[in-house]
């Protein structure tokens, strides 16, 4: 999990950069399309990672409950 979290931070950072570039409004049209596509892919990948971490946490919580 530590490795995937590390790559999550990387992806998240890349996403932040893209948003900043879009915010600056100085991208060419082809760059705009590329960065937008790349951004959406990063959002999806990050969200998937969060889902999997959340699933693991909920499973642990459930296991602790079952032990009661």
């Amino acid at each position, binding site marked *: 999990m530590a490795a995937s979290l590390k790559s999550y931070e990387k992806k*998240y950072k890349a*996403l*932040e950069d*893209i*948003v900043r570039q*879009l*915010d600056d*409004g100085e*991208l060419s*049209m082809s760059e*705009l399309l590329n960065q*937008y596509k790349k*951004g*959406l892919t990063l*959002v999806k990948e*990050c*969200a998937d990672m*969060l889902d999997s*971490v*959340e699933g693991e*946490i*909920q499973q*642990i*919580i459930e296991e*602790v*409950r079952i*032990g*009661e």
Partner: protein
Amino acid sequence: MNILSITQLNNLIKRTIDREYLLKNVYVSGTIINAKRHSSGHVYFTLKDEESSIDVTMWSSTVQSKGLANSFQNGLLVTIKASVNFYNKMGRLNLIATDMQVGSKSPLQLEFDALQRELAALGYFDDAHKQPIPVLSSCIGIVTSPTGAVIHDILHISEHRNPLMQFKLFSVPVQGSTAGPIIAKGIEAADKDPDVDVIIVGRGGGSMEDLWCFNDRVVIEAIYNSSTPIISAVGHETDYTLADYAADIRGATPSHAAEIAVLPLATLQQNLQQKFDYIQYVMSQTLQQKRIELSTIFNRRLGFPALQLIHKQNSLLQSYKEKMQTLTSQRLQQEKHKLSLITQELSLQNPLHLMVKGYSKIEKEGNVVKSVQYLAKGDSFSISLSDGSIHAVVEEVLPNGSITEKL
């Protein structure tokens, strides 16, 4: 042969007794034992001397009129005035007492009382000194006579309750002036025996004189000094000896002593099971409570914050996604707008537009004429308008803004 019925015989006895004046209003001395006061107020007791005894009744009216309500103490030496009475229906004989003089207690009773006071003052009977009887013994030491009822009663009771119980007999005489020191030695031997968990010391019923060796000072001391718990079992339920006071617990009878010393195996098992169940219950309760505490701490301090962090991160991602969409579509709108501005400008630059407004284009030999210097008098040229063209000839060229055209 004259055969009598019971009724005829009993009536005959009663008549004979009633007729005998020597049996009326006699004075008789003895020691009171087994005194019982009935709820009706009548008092029943036995009067006895060294050899014999007789049952006595004093009616409640006599007890009241003579003020004797508190005089009926066991061991008290008294002289009563009484008549012999025969109940023919039951075939029983007793004395009906009409008066009673309270004499002194018997010498033996006085000796008993004095010894009891002395030993009590020395602490021999103190409750604080008494030891608990073990719940489960493996071996009981019995200090008694090998031929008496005690050993039989004890073995009989314990056989049913716990067949695994072992016994050691410390054989002693239980009657007579020399018995006391031997009983004391028997108690000491039983106390020293490493196998013996609890001691029963006693004998069957008898007179106060018979039981006297259990009032012997050396016996009381041996009981007091024993580090093994001792149950006394001397005589019947109504008999009390100093050994009973000194013992850790008194068995009213030898059978009762056995019941105290030998708990039924089933009861022991039940007690054990109850304790085991209780321990399990407490353990599982404690564990359950700890689990709840732990999971509460886990969920509140660890699980939920972790989920919250993820939810926060998720909504950040969501907001980034929305921001990207907004920024991108804004940018596209901007570009579209720029494009439409340029388009508009382009359309404004179209010459046709100018011609509609009245402007026209002059061409000479296919070239656009932008200055008067390209034309001279007599040149032919064409004028293009929005809805057609005109061919014309120059009549005059006037530089500096003034042109005269000849159509």
